[in-house]
């Protein structure tokens, strides 16, 4: 007996829940002629809701201990390991060979483990005690920037997604991600992984849809503090940079062509989304006793 295939409807991920887009719209990306699934075509209101969720989650996530964040990231990697087969299957649906799919999933898991290790170490690396000419103890420490808009790479839809969001949240930022437009399956399945690990709702919010429709809102929203753009659309980058000026968003643009290379395992991806805070702490000098600390 022949049966009618059920095409999965992939929902978006906002604030730890899986709503449909408020607009009710969807699109059906294809690999050749094979439809991949019904994917939400997110609207600017979905983005707005996601920012509200990300803002709400920021205090809790940035206030958690670095050690705890590290454990949570490690947990994501564990959960991903357990669902390897599904991710490989989806990557192959989207056109990868079996070998390439396996390589991508393995590299993704390893990369999460890599950044999990950095959570409680990057601060030491980027902090400094600065020499000053007055009687002050002067030191600099990095703090998370806030809510970050992330444009995940269009190609390498799984490792690209991982490489853009994990270093962003490692320091305590929360983010709203726009997944790959034509290869969005892994992004939503990854949301299912996040949802069953210990990541608090709202820390990672994942939207599907088009860059064309959403990029200006992702760049202009006043409650977004930084933006991570991947790709090389010159016109789009220029527009984003202009719109980001209004509230002085930190804008980082990267062209992720060498996604597997070791240069992408780097704490400097964490440093891209932290703010350096310098503190001048008065110290008392009694006679010639030297510094007080």
């Amino acid at each position: 007996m022949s049966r009618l295939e059920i095409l999965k409807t992939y929902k978006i991920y906002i604030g730890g829940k899986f709503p449909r887009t408020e607009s009710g719209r969807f699109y059906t990306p294809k690999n050749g002629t094979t439809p991949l699934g019904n994917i939400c075509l997110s609207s600017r209101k979905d983005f707005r809701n996601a920012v509200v969720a990300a803002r709400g989650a920021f205090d809790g996530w940035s206030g958690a201990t670095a050690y705890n964040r590290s454990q949570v990231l490690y947990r994501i990697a564990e959960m991903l390991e357990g669902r390897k087969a599904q991710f490989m299957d989806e990557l192959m649906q989207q056109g990868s060979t079996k070998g390439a799919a396996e390589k991508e999933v393995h590299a993704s898991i390893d990369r999460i483990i890599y950044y999990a290790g950095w959570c409680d170490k990057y601060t030491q690396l980027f902090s400094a005690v600065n020499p000053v000419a007055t009687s002050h103890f002067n030191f600099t420490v990095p703090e998370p920037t806030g809510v970050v808009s992330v444009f995940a790479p269009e190609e390498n839809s799984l490792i690209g997604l991982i490489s853009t969001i994990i270093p962003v949240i490692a320091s305590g930022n929360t983010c709203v991600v726009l997944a790959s437009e034509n290869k969005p399956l892994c992004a939503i399945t990854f949301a299912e992984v996040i949802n069953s690990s210990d990541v608090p709702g709202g820390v990672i919010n994942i939207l599907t849809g088009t860059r064309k429709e959403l990029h200006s809102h992702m760049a202009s929203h006043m409650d977004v503090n930084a933006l991570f753009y991947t790709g090389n659309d010159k016109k789009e980058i220029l527009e984003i940079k202009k719109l980001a000026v209004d509230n002085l968003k930190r804008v980082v643009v990267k062209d992720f062509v060498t996604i597997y290379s070791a240069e992408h395992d780097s704490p400097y991806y964490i440093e891209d989304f932290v703010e350096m805070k310098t503190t001048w702490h008065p110290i008392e000098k009694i006679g010639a006793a030297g510094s007080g600390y």
Partner: protein
Amino acid sequence: MLPTLLFSLNLEFNFFRMIKKTTVYLNNPSPSVDQVGIIDRIDRITSRSIKDETKLQGLKLALNMVDLTTLEGADTENKVRQLCNKAQHLHDAYPGLPTVAAVCVYPNFVKTAKQCLQGSGINVASVATAFPSGQSSLEVKLLDVKIATDAGAEEIDMVISRGKFHEGEYNFVFDEIATIKEACGKSRLKVILETGELGSFDKVRKASDIAIEAGADFIKTSTGKISPAATLPVTLVMLEAIKDHYYRTGIQVGMKPAGGISNSKLALQYLLLVKETLGKDWLTNQWFRFGASSLANDLLMQIVKQQTGVYQSKDYFSKD
């Protein structure tokens, strides 16, 4: 069948006659509320969407209806001053914004608020009558009102005695409101029913009718100290009471939902509900208010969003 029917009609007839002798307000006994109908009506209101020009008008109107409120144990003179300043300078970066309708404080801060708001056209409202529980003697409640009115409060927000109401002492509740109304003098009286403690729509309707008949200028849902506070269904029940009273007497009574209204979308839905239940005569801060503290900022952010097209952040608006 027939004799039974006649008998019950007869009973009812006698019942009304009996009541009529003792109290005024039960002349028109409260009708029972169609709960399913109310919920259904609200579902239709909330599934609608207001856009563009209309939305902007609605947001500005809602802003002009806000009673900016601080009713915390931790309130200080300076907190009240700060709130009054906020009331007068909502967001100076955008000129042409309306002000809020009133600032609502405890009686001991009325004097401070009056000083700060002098000449601004913004009223000072004060809660009174042993707010929020209302568990005190009439003497204490009257003194509370006197302190507030003597200090210059233009509006008094009183609470009804919910305990007495549940005991069925409707006359007590009625008399108390009437006495307080008298004590208010020229100040307008808002009567808080604290619907979260009443239990059913029928009781909300009953309490609304009592308050209206006893002379309330406004009926108000909640103190904000009890959850649930204001909801759309409860507001609709109260609006219906106001409507019936208006049809009967031609006298307008105001409505103030308070507590839990923190976003613009919800505020606009309230406006829709008022417009379609009572008509546009009520769409002014003379007859409709929002009791809220965080709503004002959300309205401001939405207004700026409408004007600039850019989603806003709390970081760029004064707290209170």
